[in-house]
């Protein structure tokens, strides 16, 4: 019995030991240390933000075109002849002033209705030529051998003088003829009276018929003489007119000769820069062929080909910035002066005409050249005159519409499918205030390129967006737009804003700095 009890006790103890082992195992498993959990409100991501700032931003368009001068003088040779003079400094690129040599020297002034002496026609061709040369000084491009034209002018003037002498002789002749007419009339009257007396005498018989007849013959003779003389007097008027016409004609020829003589001295009709002088001394200049080309750089026009979509935004008066990359980044500012009425279907462009006024620059360059001998308007002076936009240059222009749009600028990469993320306050499950990412729909208007250190020192690609009304979390001035870790964001994600580590913190404020990029901004 005792053995049986002992056995039972042993079994119980054995089972108990097993149970203890199992129990220990169970307790260990049940009290297994849990993997520690983090606080729910801990931010998941540290993000960079920038402050949303509303601004009025213009939209710009870019196009290209070739500049052209609004005033260009292509100077032809007006007379043929041998080029005898060309000032040494008159090469392409030399700035010259315009000269009107037609106003130089005496001209031909004819009397009213052609009557009267032609005193004004007395000119000295050599003196005239000297006057022309004097007037052309500073503007002379080249000079053609003038001796032929000088001779022609002298000859023409001689002919005028000869004709004028004929006119003078006609006057003497008229005077004499008129005196003779008076004598003939007196003689005729004497004869008439003699005849009347003879007839009366005859009738009274005091005479004879033959005497009457003789007397009658004398009267007829006197009458005939009178008629002849009167005819001569009548012919003097037309003759004078003829001679006077001849004088005018000869004077016109002299005038042409005078002009031709003046034309031997070639000047530019406009102030500008010599583009080219085709002749050198010793060469034969043929009348009608170009001698030189002068370009006025003060006003340049550029027909800019903009994308045709610009037609809805660009207007006359919009400012344009023109640049040539190859010219050290030089820029010119101009304004749109007119728009082409129709777009080019082949290039899908619309041409707008931009005018650039370079008067001030030219004046500056002139001052520079005046102060530095050898400087020219065309550049190359040691004084580094302002760069001028030149006709023929190919430029790229950016036209900024004056119509400003009220937008929010955000980094381009921060816009995802017409939405941006903003950091917003929210409450976590325990009611504590936490920062979360919220997706906000926006209307994307256009893109801009240019640095905006006031908004972000790194970005240079921007999107102009406009808040879409009706969003639960709107986008407004002061909103913290998330600009980093965008691929990890989703609506409601717990975030930390502008966490340390030296990450950039935005400094933009609603009254921040002006734009420094190509995307200008006005507030």
């Amino acid at each position, binding site marked *: 019995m005792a053995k049986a009890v002992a056995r039972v006790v042993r079994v119980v103890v054995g089972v108990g030991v*097993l149970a203890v082992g199992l129990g220990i*195992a169970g307790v260990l498993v049940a009290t297994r240390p849990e993997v*520690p959990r983090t606080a729910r409100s801990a931010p998941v991501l540290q993000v960079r933000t920038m402050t949303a700032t509303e601004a009025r931003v213009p939209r710009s368009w870019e196009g290209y075109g070739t500049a052209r001068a609004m005033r260009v003088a292509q100077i032809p040779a007006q007379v043929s002849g041998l080029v005898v003079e060309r000032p040494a400094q008159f090469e392409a690129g030399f700035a010259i002033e315009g000269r009107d040599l037609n106003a130089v020297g005496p001209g031909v002034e004819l009397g009213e209705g052609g009557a009267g002496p032609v005193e004004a026609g007395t000119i000295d061709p050599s003196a005239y030529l000297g006057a022309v040369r004097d007037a052309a000084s500073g503007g002379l491009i080249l000079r053609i051998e003038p001796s032929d034209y000088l001779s022609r002018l002298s000859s023409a003037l001689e002919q005028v003088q000869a004709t004028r002498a004929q006119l003078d002789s006609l006057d003497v002749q008229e005077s004499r003829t008129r005196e003779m007419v008076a004598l003939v009339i007196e003689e005729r009257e004497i004869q008439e009276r003699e005849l009347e007396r003879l007839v009366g005498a005859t009738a009274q018989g005091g005479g004879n018929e033959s005497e009457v007849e003789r007397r009658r013959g004398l009267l007829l003779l006197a009458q005939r003489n009178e008629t002849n003389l009167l005819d001569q007097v009548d012919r003097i008027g037309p003759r004078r007119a003829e001679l006077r016409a001849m004088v005018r004609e000869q004077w016109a020829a002299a005038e042409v000769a005078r002009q031709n003589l003046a034309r031997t001295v070639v000047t530019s009709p406009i102030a500008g820069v010599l583009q080219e002088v085709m002749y050198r001394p010793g060469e034969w200049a043929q009348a009608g062929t170009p001698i030189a080309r002068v370009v006025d750089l003060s006003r340049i026009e550029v027909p800019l080909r903009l994308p045709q979509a610009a037609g809805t935004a660009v207007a006359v008066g919009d400012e344009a910035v023109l640049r040539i990359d190859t010219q050290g980044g030089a820029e010119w500012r101009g304004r749109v002066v007119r728009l082409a009425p129709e777009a080019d279907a082949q290039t899908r462009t619309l041409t707008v005409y931009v005018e650039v006024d370079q008067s001030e620059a030219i004046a500056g360059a002139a001052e520079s050249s005046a102060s530095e001998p050898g400087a020219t308007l065309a550049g190359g002076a040691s004084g580094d005159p302002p760069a001028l936009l030149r006709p023929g240059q190919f430029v790229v222009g950016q036209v900024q519409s004056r119509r400003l749009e009220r937008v929010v600028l955000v980094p381009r990469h921060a816009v995802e499918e017409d939405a941006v993320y903003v950091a917003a306050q929210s409450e976590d499950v325990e009611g504590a205030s936490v920062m979360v990412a919220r997706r906000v729909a926006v209307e994307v208007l256009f893109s801009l390129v240019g640095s905006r250190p006031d908004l972000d020192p790194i970005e240079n690609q921007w999107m102009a967006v406009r808040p879409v009304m009706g969003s639960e979390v709107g986008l407004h001035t002061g909103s913290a737009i998330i600009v980093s*870790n965008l691929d990890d964001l989703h609506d409601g994600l717990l975030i930390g804003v502008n966490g340390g580590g030296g990450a950039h913190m935005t400094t933009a404020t609603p009254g921040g700095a002006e734009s420094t990029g190509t995307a200008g901004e006005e507030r």
Partner: protein
Amino acid sequence: MSLAAFGVRKPVVASLVMWAVIIAGVLFGLKLRREFFPESRADRVVIAVPYPGASPEEIERSLVIKIEDRIERLRGVKEITSSISEGGASISVEFEHGIDIEPALAEVKREVDALQDLPERAERITVSKFEPNLPAIVLSLHGGSDETAMKEAIRQVRDDLRTLPKMGDIEISGTRRDEISVEVRPEALLEHGLSLTQVAARVRQAMQELPAGTLRNPSQSVPVRTVAVEEHAQQVRGIVVAAGGEGRLLTLGDIADVRRAYQDVDVLQRLNGETAVSLTVFKVGDEDAVNIAEMVKAYAAGRRGETIEPDGWERASMLMGGQHPVSNRLRAYELGRQRAGESVLPGQLTVTTDLARFIVGRLHLLTDDVGAGAFLVFLTLILTLNWRAAWWVNSGMVVSLLGTLVVMYAAGITLNLLTMVGLIIVIGIVVDDSIVIAENITAKHEAGMSPQEAAVRGTDEIAWPVIGTVATMTVAFMPLLLLEGRIGDLMGVLPIVVGIALVVSLVETLFLLPVHMSKSLAGVDKRKAAGKRSWIDIMDRRMAPIRVVVFDKWMVPAYAWALERCLRHRYMTMCAVIAMWLASLGMVAGGRVPFSFLASSDAETINGELRMPIGTPAARTNEVAALVEAAAVAMPEVKSVYVNVGNVGSLDGNSPNSNGGHLAQIILELQPVEMRDKPAEAVISELRRSLGNMAGVKSFRLEEIGGGGSGADINLGLVGDDTEELLAVAVEIKAALRDYEGVFDITDDAEQGQREARFTLRSGASELGFTQASVGEQVRGMVYGLEPYTFAGEREDVDVRVTFPAGVRRSLGDLERQHVFTPEGVAVPLGEVVEFEMAESFASVRRLNRERIVSITADVDSSVASPEAVVADLQPALDTAVARHPGVRLEVRGRQKDMADSFSSLPLAMLMAMAMIYVILAWLFGSYTQPLLILTNVPLSVIGMIWGHWVLGFELTIISLIGGVALAGGVVNDAVVFTEFYNINRRAGMSVFGSCMKSGRERIRAIVLTTFTTVIGMGPLIMEQSFQARFLIPMAITLAGGLIAGTLLTLIVLPALLLILDDARRLGRLVWRGESEPPAEASGLVVQPSAVAAGPGGA
């Protein structure tokens, strides 16, 4: 005639064999190739699919899917992974275990060659075997400012190093490729009515040199060819792109900036804040990483004008008049010296990352531990056995190890981490057999046998059990051969080395040891007969009383007392043991002894990977990297900081490099472990704290590089076709992961968010003659550039790239304002032709087995939680997330996959090993039941393994489990010895109880000694503080703890089980036959002949 008898009879042969083994072992051991991990067999084929300028999605659609579809059909394909990024894709095809890679490679090539309808611009697809490139050392040239000079100098260094023998592959980084850059001004194109493609065509036409055939005349043949423009920027500038009337020519120089430049990529390297360029030397094939590193370091020292000391081997060679220079290291040094005299470097040459030092460190460590272990074993044997036995047992161990090195050399096995671990493991085991035999021989001699007879009889008597233990031990390691996955690839070499060592030691034990013991004992007898005593004899005589007290007076009686009580209360004993076992398992299940796949260890290199959001400019990435750099430089533990912006390279050779302006790699070299207080993990934590939360950073991962495996602690793959769904699940899982403390760097590789400017043709564009392709080519030219011509430069191919100036091609806004040309050459604003749409696309696409995969990775602070614990805790959340999205599948990747692969095959392999051990034991003992009783010790011995980890504060790791496999063999060995003697006693007529008691008394000394030597052999490794050892310590703990527990089990539980078995037998007899027998303990030492079992061991 047994081996022992042959050896004793022909001692000269035995001596010759021993010396031959020793000499060969030393020579071949020094020649063994050193590497970190054993070479893994090639099981992957990599298909490189270049498609310059194409987006990942386009590449996926037009190339990758087609290739995957064809490859998938091939036999033995296990996994197809594709990684697609802008400009190209890489497809990795992994084959099943056992598939021969060469035919598989040929098949893949065939399938790829058969592909049709490939995009025109796609470049040639290449197929190759995956050869992991393991970086050995990184050499940096820093401090120079001239990029050209730096590039030229580092190239010269590379060329120098290439001349050295057995130098690995060298890759230069931090430099950019040369190119002739033709940056065409867009305004000039508009002005002259030329398109970019036309300009590129003119360049191509001008630079192409075409052979025009051969003029054959009667006297000679003259080849005719066109003379192309010379390949210099000056000449390229003069290429005529358009000609007008009156001899006006428009040259390339008129419209473009033509210059010799560098490729337009974001690359920036710094070393301690100075601009740097680097070269990385990779170990390839059978090269020795340590030798490579030594040569590079010697060359750098030579270039710096420093002196280096020849090592012992080199001194010896010089003294022997060896050929000058006597080593490759000195040759490299002299080359460096020579070059230093010829040219001056434009900066400082510094070794920045010496990964080969891990190999040296661990090999030194293991060598030291082997030496220390061997010394301790020797000391133990001296104290517990006698001097002669101790000496010859130790000699046997040395001969066995050297013999193993010879076989390893012959078999082409390298000296690496795993083989060294194998050698450490077998130290204790090889001496076990020697101890048993030496002790038996001594006992026979002391019983009065002649030295020769004692040697032969003492050996032959237990030869079979020794063979049995060797066989069981070898079989116990076999499961490692069957392990799958990466761990399996690495561990495969372990059983081979252990097997070799055991077989060599068996030969030594059965052949050489008896000879030496017989000669030694004969000497003793001779001195005894002559009345002489050596100092050894005197020492032995003085030690004998101590041994008697320790063993005979104290240990054996105490054990006998305990054993008797345990046997009398055997059921209670079993209950207590089982309870203990359950409680121990509960410690693991309850997380008191946590399990972690791989233990964290200290390191001297920290690799940081900084990932900014895709599209981040390199300048911004550099800013953040500079912050990290500054914070790291300020830490006293940091020796150097190497920053590489724009490129992230792999330090384990298993993953390809990644490029992009949003990436940066920061490598911190720490002071040596002994020169700092903080471990690498603490350095990382402090660095993280000092950096705080860095805004705008996508991920910043810091990882210790200890030479072992790398990769994220947690890697979860989401597989499916619907990307949106994948991303949705990824968001959920990442959110769930964020709930855990200590989990950081949670990120995914989807890399969505790449802002992509997509353009589509406007409706009216085709009216002008535009097509998607024609506009696309022009836009490609504007952004990427056109490469009309490539020529062979001095050391690399040089492209002529025609593109737009950087200001235009890097600005989307500017790009939109450009013009494209109609076929007639009319310029049209791009915005009027195409519609730009900003969209989000994947910067890279990854695919797994023809589906898209998004991998979520995270790291875990091991001081807070283990990755496995986090994943286990996360499992419900993962299941819920996946259940909500039926199209998404979850696949563990990374170390979780490695673990799953290893564990999936481990149970079956263990079962097979147990079955084989059972068969061996059944054959050995001629019993069905005794092997089962012996094998019972195996699961119970985990008690020691678990408690060992708990006491020493280590986590269980995969290495612990691998140690457990070896433990099975060790535990069985003790039990085999015990059972053998039990059976002998039984056959001698003793009762079961008596046999157990007697066997225990007789064998306790041998069993305890073998266990003690094994444990003491591993003692130095367990006590090792070096970070190099932490990785291995769990295995040593498993073996030591398990063997201690196994010894107790063998000495207590095995006898109890034998009695319980006898109880069962008696119960069966009572029930079946009605015959009652007294209980075993009652029969005392009464002979029961019927209970005697005979087996081969006792024959």
